[in-house]
């Protein structure tokens, strides 16, 4: 059977759309912070959270008991919470004379467990009777009512096996997931496993199907996969076949697919990402997509269903399941009660006996009794809950006076309130944070400086920069600025020891320019240069093979490493650094090559390939071949000449062998005209034109409002982390650089900004960089707080006399920063002297057994776009992303649009990743690191076999089981006139959507009118705020 083309494409598109709610999962080597509900961002936040509950069975807000702790510790104010409750109550009609506000406040603040009243069997009348200690009136439940309970439990879009599992206590779903995970581990392995799955180059489905047809183990288990696979070769055809065998109505397919795909959402997210990552070596070599994956799930699922049906007569299709439900709804009801663990404990035995006997009479006899006792149980539960609540709220008497109808209304109201409660707590928590932050801002004009600062330092917007910036400003005359850590210059980087490109920019951008790193150690240059290029062209991606350290891979040396790192991290590492001195200095190739240069490189490369071919194919050493022979072979291979060559004559090759060798050169060693053209195109990607260079520098400087008054030193500080044995290390690196270290982008922009030709053009554009201003790349190690300058050998001699002062300042700031940060990691070291704190931070970075080398971006809460002056006096406690911006340098608002579209979006991903990992670490986060195992070298599993764990580990967001990261939506503050800021927000649709749908909170502070506006309840509302004057501040005030 072959599906028509249109139908095939349609099924592909259905699977694509069905998978969209599941977020991408990037390989751990470059951990990308993402919103776990990214696929639902088209919905308002609270709605998306509910949808996330349905799809991922995950909680979207903290539990009430945690919020109550926030309340008692003052992180949430009662007044704020009360306002929220007031808003809820005022939108609803009164219930008799109850004081609803008081009742609900009591529920929130004094009852720790949710009440969750769902009226199913018991109704208001029953609860009323129980409250007045009367007996329940007898009532019969119709078959249709019971059928409606079941339908709500087992919606038709859920996979058939979930229905079978719920009814018969089978574990088909769990077995299926396990089989699928094993298949995925085999196929997606990136060099961790010793055994390699055969036929992977044919794609996931084809490779799996080839194996599954012959898989004896599956056959012995009674799974007849071969029969299913015989129907069609294509995954689309198989999907269509299985769905029709399952008899699922086509209108439900998309929902059905979504349910299938969300069961292992980590794997699905990885496959989704991988299918679209065209530059990813492993996906190029071993392609796979969601259609393949879904086909495998469906085949295995159908085989398992059939095997169970054969053995235990359970339904094997949606319609036979439906027939079962319609034929015996009572039996189905009791079965679901029993297998989902909801059965009344006192009747558990009786129910179990009845369903296992499968005798109708027993079931029919049991049913009325069960329903009546369950109804009683429910009525008692709601009644006692209501009574306790009313007593606490001082309304017990009022409760007793309520009519049954009013009790129903009250229970419905409580149910609705508890559904919305999380959002209420969140709003109240945010309001307090927002108020504290906005009230502290200083909107006065920046005072003019008498002289230029000793140094200007640009830092990434990352929240960790705030701490080091504050300390730098404290120790000396440093002006600090915030900019996205890729400095606005998207770079595709090829390092000295790397054979693949690394994208150094936010993942929403694809860099167009390649930057090559060349070592200084071998100035002869050409050989080294060629070896780099050779690797690029031949895609010898050696680097992708060594992502994490594993015991097998490192062998003996690793044993030594493990010893040293566990017992004496610092001393050991110094010793090891002596063993492996740092790699030699390097330069970046940033300028476009000329045509002559490119041709010459290609010629050298072709010559190098010929030398290699001569040695490998004919075993002739280089010294026996002359340059002229190589030239001639090259010309022949390229088709510029014909006939026998001197080389052939000299080594006595017969014409056929010579012809074969030439062919081999063309085909295998790629010395041919077509490939030379491709090489030329690839070389064309190297470097930036002068126009591009000027554009990037000018855009970066303007976006942070730095266009004049340049210091002698302008440091561009990238950042990254260092930790050992930490698969999450990349999560601590620079998000704006795609989860990499930010030093390369700093080096690129510095090198460009120091070029006289660039400065001359900048001057014409109104950016006056003083002649003695020198841009220096630097690196902020966020685990140790070290600040280190790079490319110092390029420094002009005139600057050397000031270097000592610069380094002193940097070191002092590092120590102060460590002293401030260390107590958050080690509560015992609250009074450590800066120098010893700094040493301890180093120790953490090298300690092999350290599960929390640093807190990373934990506790992030705000993103402030504006002058540093407005926050300079504040201690923001490393919780705010700071992007420097001066609206006066941005007449059209384009720079602001760019800040919103790039950095703010990345900040929101980081914020949401932390938010959801903190509110539900089990489902949205990745649980404890202690149980983590590296899967296939790209992901993490809990234990031996599990879904890929996405999100952040418990050690990053929780402390002692409670959220260290306070989950707040990112508060974006823009310092600009209202109209200017609003225009920019409206122009960037992605950000407008985030604001309007409540994925970020946004405030605009207008320095001209000193008015504050906050976007809430669907519009911009002016807020009354305490105004600060612009007098200089001496002490830094901490912000809650």
């Amino acid at each position, binding site marked *: 059977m072959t599906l028509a083309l249109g139908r095939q*494409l349609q099924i592909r598109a259905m699977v694509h759309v069905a998978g969209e709610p599941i977020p991408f999962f990037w390989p751990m080597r470059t951990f990308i912070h993402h919103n776990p509900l990214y696929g639902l961002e088209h919905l308002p936040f609270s709605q998306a959270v509910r949808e996330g509950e349905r799809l991922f069975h995950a909680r979207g807000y903290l539990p009430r008991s945690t919020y109550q702790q926030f309340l008692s510790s003052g992180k949430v104010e009662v007044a704020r919470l009360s306002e929220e409750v007031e808003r809820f109550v005022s939108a609803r009609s009164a219930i008799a004379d109850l004081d609803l506000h008081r009742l609900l406040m009591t529920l929130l603040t004094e009852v720790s467990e949710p009440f969750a009243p769902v009226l199913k069997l018991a109704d208001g009348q029953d609860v009323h009777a129980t409250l007045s200690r009367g007996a329940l009136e007898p009532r019969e439940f119709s078959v249709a009512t019971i059928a409606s309970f079941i339908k709500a439990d087992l919606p038709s879009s859920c996979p058939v096996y979930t229905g079978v599992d719920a009814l018969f206590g089978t574990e088909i779903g769990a077995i299926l997931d396990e089989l699928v995970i094993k298949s995925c581990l085999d196929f997606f392995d990136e060099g961790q496993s010793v055994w390699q799955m055969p036929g992977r180059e044919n794609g996931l489905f084809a490779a799996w199907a080839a194996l599954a047809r012959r898989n004896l183990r599956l056959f012995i288990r009674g799974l007849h996969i071969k029969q299913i696979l015989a129907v069609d070769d294509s995954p689309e055809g198989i999907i269509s076949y299985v769905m029709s065998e399952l008899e699922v109505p086509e209108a439900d397919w998309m929902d059905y697919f979504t349910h299938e795909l969300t069961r292992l959402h980590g794997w699905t997210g990885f496959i989704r990402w991988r299918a679209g990552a065209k530059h990813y070596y492993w996906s190029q070599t071993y392609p796979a997509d969601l259609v393949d994956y879904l086909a495998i799930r469906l085949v295995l699922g159908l085989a398992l269903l059939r095997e169970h049906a054969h053995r235990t007569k359970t339904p094997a299709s949606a319609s036979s399941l439906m027939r079962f439900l319609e034929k015996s709804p009572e039996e189905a009801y009791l079965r679901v009660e029993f297998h989902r663990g909801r059965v009344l404990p006192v009747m558990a035995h009786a129910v179990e006996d009845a369903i296992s006997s499968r005798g109708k009479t027993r079931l029919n006899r049991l049913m009325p009794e069960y329903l009546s006792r369950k109804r009683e149980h429910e009525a008692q539960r709601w009644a006692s809950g209501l009574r306790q609540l009313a007593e606490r709220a001082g309304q017990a008497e009022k409760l007793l006076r309520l009519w049954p109808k009013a009790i129903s209304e009250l229970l419905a109201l409580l149910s609705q309130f508890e559904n919305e409660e999380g959002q209420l707590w969140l709003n109240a928590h945010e309001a307090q944070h927002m108020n504290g932050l906005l009230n502290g801002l200083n909107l006065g004009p920046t005072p003019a400086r008498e002289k230029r600062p000793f140094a200007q330092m640009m830092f990434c917007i990352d929240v960790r920069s705030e701490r080091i910036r504050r300390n730098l400003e404290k120790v000396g005359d440093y002006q600090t600025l915030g900019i996205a850590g890729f400095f606005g210059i998207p770079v595709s980087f090829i390092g000295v020891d790397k054979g693949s490109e690394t994208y150094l*920019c936010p993942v929403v951008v694809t860099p167009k320019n390649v930057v090559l790193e060349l070592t200084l150690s071998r100035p002869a240059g050409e050989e080294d240069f060629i070896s780099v290029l050779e690797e690029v062209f031949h895609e010898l991606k050696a680097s992708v093979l060594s992502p994490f350290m594993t015991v097998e891979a490192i062998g003996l040396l690793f044993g030594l490493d493990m010893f040293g790192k566990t017992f004496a991290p610092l001393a050991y590492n110094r010793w090891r650094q002596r063993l492996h001195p740092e790699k030699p200095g390097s330069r970046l190739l940033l300028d476009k090559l000329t045509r002559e240069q490119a041709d010459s490189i290609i010629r050298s490369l072709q010559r190098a390939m010929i030398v290699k071919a001569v040695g490998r194919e004919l075993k002739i050493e280089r010294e026996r071949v002359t340059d002229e022979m190589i030239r001639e072979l090259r010309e022949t291979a390229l088709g510029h000449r014909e006939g026998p060559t001197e080389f052939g004559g000299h080594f006595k090759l017969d014409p056929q062998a010579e012809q074969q060798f030439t062919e081999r050169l063309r085909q295998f060693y790629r010395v041919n005209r077509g490939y030379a053209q491709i090489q030329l195109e690839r070389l064309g990607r190297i470097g930036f034109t002068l126009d591009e260079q000027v554009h990037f520098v000018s855009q970066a400087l303007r976006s942070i409002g730095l266009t004049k008054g340049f210091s002698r030193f302008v440091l561009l500080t990238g950042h990254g982390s260092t930790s050992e044995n930490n698969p999450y290390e990349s999560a601590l690196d620079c998000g704006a650089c795609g989860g990499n270290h930010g030093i390369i982008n700093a080096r690129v922009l510095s090198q460009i900004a120091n070029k006289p030709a660039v400065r001359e053009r900048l001057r014409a554009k109104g950016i006056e960089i003083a002649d003695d201003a020198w841009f220096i790349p630097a690196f902020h190690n966020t685990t140790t707080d070290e600040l280190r300058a790079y490319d110092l050998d390029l420094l002009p001699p005139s600057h050397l006399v000031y270097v000592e002062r610069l380094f002193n300042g940097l070191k002092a700031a590092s120590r102060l920063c460590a002293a401030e940060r260390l107590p958050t990691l080690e509560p015992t070291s609250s009074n450590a002297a800066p120098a010893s704190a700094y040493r301890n931070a180093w120790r953490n970075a090298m300690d092999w057994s350290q599960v929390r080398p640093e807190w990373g971006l934990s506790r992030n809460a705000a993103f402030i776009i504006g002058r540093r002056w407005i926050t300079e006096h504040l201690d923001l406690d490393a919780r705010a992303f700071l992007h420097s911006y001066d609206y006066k340098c941005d007449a059209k608002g384009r720079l602001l649009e760019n800040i919103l579209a790039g950095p703010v979006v990345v900040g929101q991903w980081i914020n949401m990743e932390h938010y959801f990992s903190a509110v539900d670490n089990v489902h949205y986060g990745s649980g404890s690191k202690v149980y983590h195992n590296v899967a296939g070298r790209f992901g993490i599993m809990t234990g031996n076999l599990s879904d890929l764990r996405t999100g952040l580990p418990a050690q990053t967001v929780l402390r002692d089981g409670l959220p260290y990261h306070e989950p707040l939506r990112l508060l974006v503050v823009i310092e600009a006139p209202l109209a200017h800021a609003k225009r920019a927000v409206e122009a960037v649709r992605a950000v407008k959507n985030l604001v309007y749908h409540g994925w970020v909170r946004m405030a605009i502070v207008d320095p001209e009118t000193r008015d504050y506006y906050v976007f809430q309840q669907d519009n911009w509302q002016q807020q009354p705020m305490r105004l600060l004057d612009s007098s200089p501040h001496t002490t830094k005030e901490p912000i809650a």
Partner: protein
Amino acid sequence: MNNLNLSPVKKLEIIIEGAHQEFATDLLDRAGVTGYTIVGNLSGKGRHGFHEGHLMFNEDAVLIMIIVAIPGELVEPILEGFSPFFNKHTGVVFISDIQVSRLVKFKS
């Protein structure tokens, strides 16, 4: 002009958000389309108001247009393939009759 041998083909102009480019081109590839042109950073007005097409640090949010010339018999399968996608996402497909001189370039 008289000695030009022109053949009729169909032109599709598919306008979608940049984030879905991979999906769309993959679908076209699988339909056997031999080539296409992609225009990025579109400006224009639609149901969602005016779209500014200037360069930004976020390629997912911009609109793109994929232009493709195909033999008539591929129009229906491709539209059928896109239908579940357009049920959920914004975007448009324009279909027009065009002529090409070298038909072989547009047939797989």
